[in-house]
C-alpha cells in the first residue's frame, strides 16, 4: 500500500455532553495510536480541545474543527484519506459517517468505511430494521407496535401481557406516556397518548422493567472470530438507563447456563450484523425464568466498552481499530501479557463496580428520578476482591461528601418515609437500601419494592452487619472484625465512627496488627499468565504483587469522575504530567478512579493504581511506593484538596507548596497578599451568619456576588440585587457557619480576562491571554473565550503580565497558576487565583503550542523557566485566533435554569480556530451546535436594563433580513427606538402567546435575559425551558447574541467561509 493509501480519517465525538463523556477521548486516543502502530497516517477531526486525542502528536493531522457535514467534507477534500474509521467517536462519529455517506461525500472522494459497514450500523440503529433482524435469528425483542386506534392498542396489550409502556409519537420528554399495569390503565393512557401526539400515534411496548439488566461486550473480526470481552450486571434492574445504573462486572447472579445463553446470543447477533470491531449488547433477563429480550445493540465502542476495557485490562478500542484495518484477533497481541493473543476471553478474579456521578448538586431543581434518559455526567469504577469492597470504594470515589454507604440525612427519616423513598428510583436509592437494612427492614421486602436482586441487598447487609459488630465491640474492637471491615475496604475513619472511637485508634490498631492492603494486578487472565503492565487495585488479602517503581518515582493524583466544573481537561493535565515525568527520566505513578479516561489507560503511566482519591487510600499507595513526591496541581480540586492532608502526613508535595495553595484559597490570607502586592480586587466580605451578610451588603452595596468558600465551578454562586434575594440565598442556598463562611463580593460589570501561567517562583511564562466574551457574572467555564484577547489595550496587557508575575512570585508558584481578572472602569482587578491547572490549560496549550503541563511538571521537579529555555513574560500572540465555546446538556436535566450566571452549567466545550476572529467565532458557535438560523424569526424579551443594548442588536438582525418578535415591554422600547418588530403576548397575558409561537416552531432563535421580581422570572424560566424542549436555540446573554450577530454578518458578507487547517499547519507558524 502506498503512503497515500495508508491514510485514515478518525472522527472524534466532539464536546462532552451527558451520555457522551471522556470515554471517547480514551477510545479515540487508543485508536489513533493503534493505527499508527500499523504504519497508518491518521487524520483526526474533533472539535473538543480538552482531549488528549487532539494533541498534535497523537495524529499526523489534527483538525480541531466542527464535526458537521460541511467541515468534515472539507477535511476529506483536503486530505483525501483512504479510509474512514467511524465507530470510535461515539454516536456523534457514527452519525457523521452516516451523513457523509448519504450525502455522497464518501463516494465522491473514494473513502472506504473501515470496519463495520453502514448497512450493519443501520440495522443495529434503526428500530424497525433491528426488530426485523432479531426476528430472523430468533432473538427475542420486546413485542411492540404502533397504533392510532385505542381499541386496537388495548387488544394488542391484552395479547402481549402487562405491564405495558405507552409512548406517544413526537411529544417531548415522553409527555403523555406511561406504564399501564392493566387493561383499564391501558385504555386511559392510550387514549390520552393518542390525543396528545401531534400525529395521533402511540408506540405500545411490553415493559420489562424490573428484569435483570445484563450487558455483553463482544468483539468480532473479518474472519468471523468472536469473543466476549466482559459481561456486566446492573444492580439497578431494567428501567434505569445503564449509564445511570450501578453496574458490576462480571455478572454475579447468573449461573453458567444463563451466562452462556446470553453469550451465545451476543455472538449470534454480532455475526448476523457482521460487525467488525466492538459491539455492546444489552439484555433484559427475567429473574424468574430463562426468558430474555435483546434491548439494544450498539455497533461501536461505547461508554460500556471503556468500562469493560478498564475492568478487564482488554483494550477494546485499540483492538477494534486494528480489526477495522482487517487484522484478525489472533494476529493482535494481548498487550498485558505480551505473549498471549487478543483472541481470548478475559477472566476476572475480582469484582468491579461502576457508580454514576450525577450533577444534581448543581441543579437543585432538577428531577432526580432516574429512568430512560441518562442524567449522569461521569462515573467512577472500583475494583476489589469482594463486592462490598468495590462498592464502598466506588462510593468514596464519587466525591460527593460521602465516605461510606450512608447518607446522614436518611437517619432522620421515619420508617414510612424510608419505605416511600425505596419506591423512588433516584440517585439516592442505594443509600436508602442501606438505611432500610439498618432499621431492620427485611432483604425480601426491599427486594420486593426495589426489584433489586436479593444477592446485592444481602451484600449491602453484610456491610451493615459489620457496622453493627463495630458498634457492639466499640473500644474492644477485635482483630477479626477489623480484618473483616478492611476486607470490605472500610476506611479507618468509618470504622472509627461506627466503633465510636477516634480514627487514630483504629489506624494504630491496624498498624500494630500489620493490617495493610495488598495490591494486585488487573491482568486479563486471573493470574494464569504473567502480566507486564503494572495496573493495580487494592485488596486486604495476603499476597502483594507490587514492584515499587524505585527511588525516582512520582505520584500524579488524578481528578476522579467527570462532573460539571471538573471535566476531561484535568485528565488531559494528569496524562501530560505523567508523560513529562517519564521524559524527565522519572517513573510516573497515577492514582485515579475514572474508567472513561486516558489517565487510567495502563499505557499512560509506569504504574496505575485504580483507587479512590481519599487520604487513606492515597497514603497506602505512598507507603507501598515511597515516591520522591506527589504532584497535586493537575488533578483539579480533587487532587488539590488532598495536598494539605498528605503534607501533614509528611508527604512531599512537588511544585507549589501547600502553604501557597492555602494562601490563595484562604480569603483573609489572600486579601493580605494582594494588599502587600498592591493589587486591587473587588471589595468584599467574609460572613458567617445571616445578620453579618445583611450588614456586609449594606456596606458594600448591590449588586453582589455571593458564594460559599472553597468551591469548584462556582457551585451555589449567585448574583443578588437586593436584600430579599440575599435573604433567600442565605436561607436556602447555603448554611453559613464559622467553618464554612460565605463570601460576599461587589459585583463589578466589566470584561473578564483569564491567564494561565507557568512559574518557577521567580519568573513567569504566559503563553497567552484569554478574553471572555460574556461579561463578568457569567461563570468563566460557561463563557466563550477568545485567544488572543481582542479588546485589551497594550497598557492593560502589560499590567496583566505585571500582576501575574507579582502574584506568582508572591505565592511562590512552582508550576501552573490560573488567574482571573476583571477590567472595570479601566482598572484591572483580580477576581480569583488558582495555583493549579485550570480547565483552559488544554485550550491554551493547543493554540499556542506550548505544552504547559510538561513545563510545569519539570518545574515541580526543580527545573527553572530559564533552564528550560522558555521565554518569560507574555509570549507574543499567534497570527490566528481561537475561540472556546461552552456546550450544555440542558435537554437531559429536566427543569433546570438555563440562563447563564455565576454558577457553572456547561458539561463540555469546543474550539474554533481560524485566521480571523469572525472565522474562529463561527467555527466555535457552529461546533457547539448552537444552531443559529441563517434567516427567520427572532423572539426577544429582555430585562429593562438590557433594552438599549437589545435594540441595537435587534436592528442589526433586521438589517440582515431577520424578523423580530418581542413581548410588550421590550417591543414597545424597540418601536420607540425605530426597530421594526411584531408585538407578541406574554404567557400571563393569554391569547396567542410567545410560548405558543415557540411550540408551533415559529421562533427560530430566542434572546432572553434574566429579569428579577416574582412573576416575570417564572415566566422567563418557563420560556427558556420551553425553548430547550422544543430545540429552539436560546441565548441568555446579550454578549453572546452580539457575537452571534457578528458571525451572521460575516457569513452574509461572505467574509467567513468553510475553511479547515490542521493544528500542525498552525504550529508551523
Amino acid at each position: 500500500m502506498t503512503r497515500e493509501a495508508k491514510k485514515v480519517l478518525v472522527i472524534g465525538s466532539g464536546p462532552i455532553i451527558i451520555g457522551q463523556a471522556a470515554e471517547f477521548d480514551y477510545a479515540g486516543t487508543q485508536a489513533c495510536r493503534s493505527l499508527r502502530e500499523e504504519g497508518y497516517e491518521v487524520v483526526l477531526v474533533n472539535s473538543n480541545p480538552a482531549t488528549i486525542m487532539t494533541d498534535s502528536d497523537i495524529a499526523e493531522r489534527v483538525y480541531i474543527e466542527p464535526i458537521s457535514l460541511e467541515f468534515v467534507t472539507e477535511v476529506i477534500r483536503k486530505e483525501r484519506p483512504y479510509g474512514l474509521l467511524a465507530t470510535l467517536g461515539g454516536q456523534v462519529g457514527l452519525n457523521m459517517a452516516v451523513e457523509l455517506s448519504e450525502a455522497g461525500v464518501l463516494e465522491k472522494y473514494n473513502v472506504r468505511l473501515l470496519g463495520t459497514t453502514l448497512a450493519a450500523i443501520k440495522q443495529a440503529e434503526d428500530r424497525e430494521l433491528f426488530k426485523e433482524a432479531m426476528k430472523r435469528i430468533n432473538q427475542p425483542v420486546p413485542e411492540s407496535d404502533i397504533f392510532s386506534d385505542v381499541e386496537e392498542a388495548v387488544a394488542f396489550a391484552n395479547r402481549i401481557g402487562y405491564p405495558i409502556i405507552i409512548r406517544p409519537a413526537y411529544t417531548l420528554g415522553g409527555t403523555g406516556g406511561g406504564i399501564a399495569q392493566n387493561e383499564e390503565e391501558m385504555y386511559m393512557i392510550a387514549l390520552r397518548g393518542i390525543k396528545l401526539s401531534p400525529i395521533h400515534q402511540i408506540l405500545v411496548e411490553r415493559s420489562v422493567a424490573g428484569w435483570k439488566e445484563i450487558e455483553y461486550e463482544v468483539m468480532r473480526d473479518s474472519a468471523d472470530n468472536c469473543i466476549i470481552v466482559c459481561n456486566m450486571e446492573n444492580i439497578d434492574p431494567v428501567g434505569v438507563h445503564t449509564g445511570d445504573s450501578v453496574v458490576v462486572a462480571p455478572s454475579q447472579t447468573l449461573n453458567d447456563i444463563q451466562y452462556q445463553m446470553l453469550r451465545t446470543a451476543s455472538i449470534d447477533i454480532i455475526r448476523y450484523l457482521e460487525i467488525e470491531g466492538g459491539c455492546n449488547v444489552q439484555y433484559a433477563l427475567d429473574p424468574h425464568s430463562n426468558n430474555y429480550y435483546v434491548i439494544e445493540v450498539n455497533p461501536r465502542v461505547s461508554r460500556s466498552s471503556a468500562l469493560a476495557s478498564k475492568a478487564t485490562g482488554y483494550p477494546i478500542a485499540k483492538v477494534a481499530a486494528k480489526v477495522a484495518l482487517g487484522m484478525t484477533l489472533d494476529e493482535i497481541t494481548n498487550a498485558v501479557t505480551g505473549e498471549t493473543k487478543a483472541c481470548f476471553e478475559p477472566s476476572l478474579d475480582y469484582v468491579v463496580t461502576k457508580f454514576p456521578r450525577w450533577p444534581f448538586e448543581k441543579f437543585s431543581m432538577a428531577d432526580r428520578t432516574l429512568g430512560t434518559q441518562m442524567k449522569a455526567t461521569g462515573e467512577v469504577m472500583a475494583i476489589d476482591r469482594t463486592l462490598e469492597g468495590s462498592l464502598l470504594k466506588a462510593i468514596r470515589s464519587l466525591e460527593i461528601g460521602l465516605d461510606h454507604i450512608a447518607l446522614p440525612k436518611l437517619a432522620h427519616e421515619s420508617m414510612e418515609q424510608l419505605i416511600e423513598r425505596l419506591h423512588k428510583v433516584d440517585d439516592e436509592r442505594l443509600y436508602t437500601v442501606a438505611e432500610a437494612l439498618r432499621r431492620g427492614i427485611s432483604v425480601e421486602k426491599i427486594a420486593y419494592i426495589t426489584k433489586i436482586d436479593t444477592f446485592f441487598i444481602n451484600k449491602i447487609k453484610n456491610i451493615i452487619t459489620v457496622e453493627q459488630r463495630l458498634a457492639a465491640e466499640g473500644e474492644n474492637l477485635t482483630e477479626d472484625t477489623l480484618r473483616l471491615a478492611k476486607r470490605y475496604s472500610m476506611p479507618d475513619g468509618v470504622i472509627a465512627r461506627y466503633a465510636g472511637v477516634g480514627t487514630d485508634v483504629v489506624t494504630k490498631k491496624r498498624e500494630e496488627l500489620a493490617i495493610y492492603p495488598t495490591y494486585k494486578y488487573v491482568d486479563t487472565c486471573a493470574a494464569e499468565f504473567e502480566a507486564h503492565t503494572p495496573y493495580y487495585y487494592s485488596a486486604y488479602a495476603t499476597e502483594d504483587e507490587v514492584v515499587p517503581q524505585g527511588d525516582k518515582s512520582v505520584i500524579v493524583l488524578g481528578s476522579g469522575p467527570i462532573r460539571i466544573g471538573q471535566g476531561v481537561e484535568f485528565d488531559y493535565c494528569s496524562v501530560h504530567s505523567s508523560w513529562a515525568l517519564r521524559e524527565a527520566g522519572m517513573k510516573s505513578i497515577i492514582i485515579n478512579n475514572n474508567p472513561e479516561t486516558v489517565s487510567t489507560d495502563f499505557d499512560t503511566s509506569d504504574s496505575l493504581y485504580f483507587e479512590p482519591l481519599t487520604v487513606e487510600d492515597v497514603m497506602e499507595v505512598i507507603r507501598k511506593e515511597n515516591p520522591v513526591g506527589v504532584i497535586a496541581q493537575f488533578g483539579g480540586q480533587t487532587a488539590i484538596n488532598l495536598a494539605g492532608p498528605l503534607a501533614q502526613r509528611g508527604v512531599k508535595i512537588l511544585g507549589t507548596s501547600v502553604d501557597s495553595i492555602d494562601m490563595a484559597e484562604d480569603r483573609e490570607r489572600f486579601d493580605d497578599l494582594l494588599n502587600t502586592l498592591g493589587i486591587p480586587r473587588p471589595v468584599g466580605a467574609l460572613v458567617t451568619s445571616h445578620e453579618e451578610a445583611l450588614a456586609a451588603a449594606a456596606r458594600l452595596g448591590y449588586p453582589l456576588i455571593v458564594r460559599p468558600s472553597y468551591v469548584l465551578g462556582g457551585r451555589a454562586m449567585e448574583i443578588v440585587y437586593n436584600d430579599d434575594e440575599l435573604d433567600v440565598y442565605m436561607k436556602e442556598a447555603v448554611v453559613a457557619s464559622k467553618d464554612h463562611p460565605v463570601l460576599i463580593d461587589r459585583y463589578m460589570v466589566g470584561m473578564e480576562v483569564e491567564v494561565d501561567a507557568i512559574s518557577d517562583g521567580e519568573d513567569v511564562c504566559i503563553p497567552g491571554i484569554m478574553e471572555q466574551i460574556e461579561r463578568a457574572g457569567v461563570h468563566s467555564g460557561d463563557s466563550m473565550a477568545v485567544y488572543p484577547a481582542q479588546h485589551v489595550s497594550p497598557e492593560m496587557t502589560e499590567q496583566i503580565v505585571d500582576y501575574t508575575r507579582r502574584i506568582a512570585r508572591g505565592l511562590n508558584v512552582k508550576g501552573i497558576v490560573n488567574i482571573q481578572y476583571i477590567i472595570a472602569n479601566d482598572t484591572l482587578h483580580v477576581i480569583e487565583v488558582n495555583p493549579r491547572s485550570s480547565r483552559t490549560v488544554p485550550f491554551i496549550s493547543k493554540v499556542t503550542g506550548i505544552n504547559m503541563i510538561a513545563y510545569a511538571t519539570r518545574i515541580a521537579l526543580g527545573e527553572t523557566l530559564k533552564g528550560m529555555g522558555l521565554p518569560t513574560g507574555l509570549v507574543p500572540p499567534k497570527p490566528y485566533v481561537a475561540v472556546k465555546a461552552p456546550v450544555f446538556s440542558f435537554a437531559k436535566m429536566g427543569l433546570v435554569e438555563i440562563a447563564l450566571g455565576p454558577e457553572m452549567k456547561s458539561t463540555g466545550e469546543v474550539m474554533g480556530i481560524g485566521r480571523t476572529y469572525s472565522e474562529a467565532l463561527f467555527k466555535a458557535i457552529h461546533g457547539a451546535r448552537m444552531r443559529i438560523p441563517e434567516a427567520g424569526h427572532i423572539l426577544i424579551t429582555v430585562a429593562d436594563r438590557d433594552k438599549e443594548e437589545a435594540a441595537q442588536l435587534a436592528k442589526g438582525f433586521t438589517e440582515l433580513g431577520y424578523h423580530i418578535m418581542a413581548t410588550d415591554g421590550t417591543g414597545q422600547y424597540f418601536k420607540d427606538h425605530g426597530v421594526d418588530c411584531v408585538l407578541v403576548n406574554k404567557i400571563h397575558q393569554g391569547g396567542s402567546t410567545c410560548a405558543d409561537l415557540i411550540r408551533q416552531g415559529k421562533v427560530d432563535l430566542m434572546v432572553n435575559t434574566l429579569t428579577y421580581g416574582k412573576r416575570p422570572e417564572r415566566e422567563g424560566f418557563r420560556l427558556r425551558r420551553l425553548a430547550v424542549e422544543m430545540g429552539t436555540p436560546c441565548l441568555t446573554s446579550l454578549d453572546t447574541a452580539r457575537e452571534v450577530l457578528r458571525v451572521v454578518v460575516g457569513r452574509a458578507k461572505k467574509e467567513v467561509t468553510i475553511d479547515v487547517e490542521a493544528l500542525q499547519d498552525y504550529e508551523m507558524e
Partner: protein
Amino acid sequence: MKGKLVLQDGAVFEGELLGGAPILGEVVFNTGMTGYQEIVTDPSYADQIITLTYPLIGNYGVFRDIVQAPKPYCRGMIVGELCTFPSNWQNEGRFEEFLRAYGVPCLYNVDTRAITRRIRNHGVMKGVICPADTDEARIEALLAQELPTDQVARVTTTWEGHRGADNADFHVAVYDFGVKENILQSLERCGCRLTIYPAATKAETVLAANPDGIFLSNGPGDPKSLDYAVEEVKKLMGKKPIFGICMGHQVLALAYGGDTYKMRFGHRGSNHPVKDLETGRIYITSQNHGYAVSEESLNGADVTITHRSVNDGSVEGMRHNTMPIMSVQYHPEASPGPTDNLYLFEQFKELMRKG
C-alpha cells in the same frame, strides 16, 4: 474453623475451613467465572484440590440439572468467598451445603490469587488442606504420600449402561474414563443412543454390539496409566468411527504411537482460544487438562494436527489421515463454558454417517 493450605514446597495459605479432616490432593486452578457446580462434579478432577480464581463462589446456588457426575471426585475446593445467600430462580440450595453433603472440604476466605500465582510459577504440586492447628508431622506425612494413579478405575462406570431413544439415528459406544454428564446429553441430543462401557472393556465386547461409532471420554489422571485402554483402542481403530475428548484424545495419541506429557499447570477454564488449523477460525473453548499430546511424538503417525492452542501452541485436536478418527483436547460439551463447539458432535455424526 480456621484452616490452611500447605503446599508441597512449604508455602502456607490461611483461611477458613468447611468440613473435613486433613486431605491431600494435587492443587490446580480453574479460571472460569461461572460453573462451580459443574467443575466440582467433573470426574476429571479426581484426587485434585481445585482452586477457583473467581473470588465469589456460590452466588447462584446449586441445582441438580447441571451436575456432571453422581458425586464429586475432587478432594477439595479452595475459594475466595462462599456465598450463603444465593439468588437465582434455578437455585435449590447453598453451594456450602452441597459441599458438606458430599464431604468435599473447602478452604475459603483465602487469597486464591496468591495460590494461583504460586502454581503458575512453580507448577502444579501436592497440597494439604487442614485445620489451622493440625500438627506439622501429620501434614508432612500426608505430603510425603504418593497420589494414586488409578483414578479412572475409580470413576468409571462399573456396569454397562444404556441411554437414549431406541429409535435414535446412531448407536454410540462410550468408553467411560470419567465421562461428564453433558457429554452424554450432547450425544443424545444430536440423535445418538448410547451404550456406556467401563474403561477396561475389551474391544471385542464393544465391536460385538456393532455400534455406529465409538466415543472415548474425558477422565482424570495420567493417560499413560490407561495402557489397557490404549491397547483396546488400537484394536478399534479403523473398525468404527471414533471421537475422543480430553483423556480420549490423549488415549488416541498413545494408540497412534505418540506420547503425552504433564503440563506445568495445565489448562483449566472457560476462556481458552483454540485455532482450527484447517479453517483458520478461532474458537473459545472450555478446557480441563493437566496432560497434553506431544506434537513431535506424532511425527511418524499418519495423523494431522487439526487444532492448536492460541496461547501456547499445544496440540488441541487431531484427525487420522485415513481412518475416521477425530479428537479434541478441550470440551465441546462445555458445562461449564462456551457452547461454541457443539458442532464437533455433528462432525462425529457425519463420520458415523459415512461409516
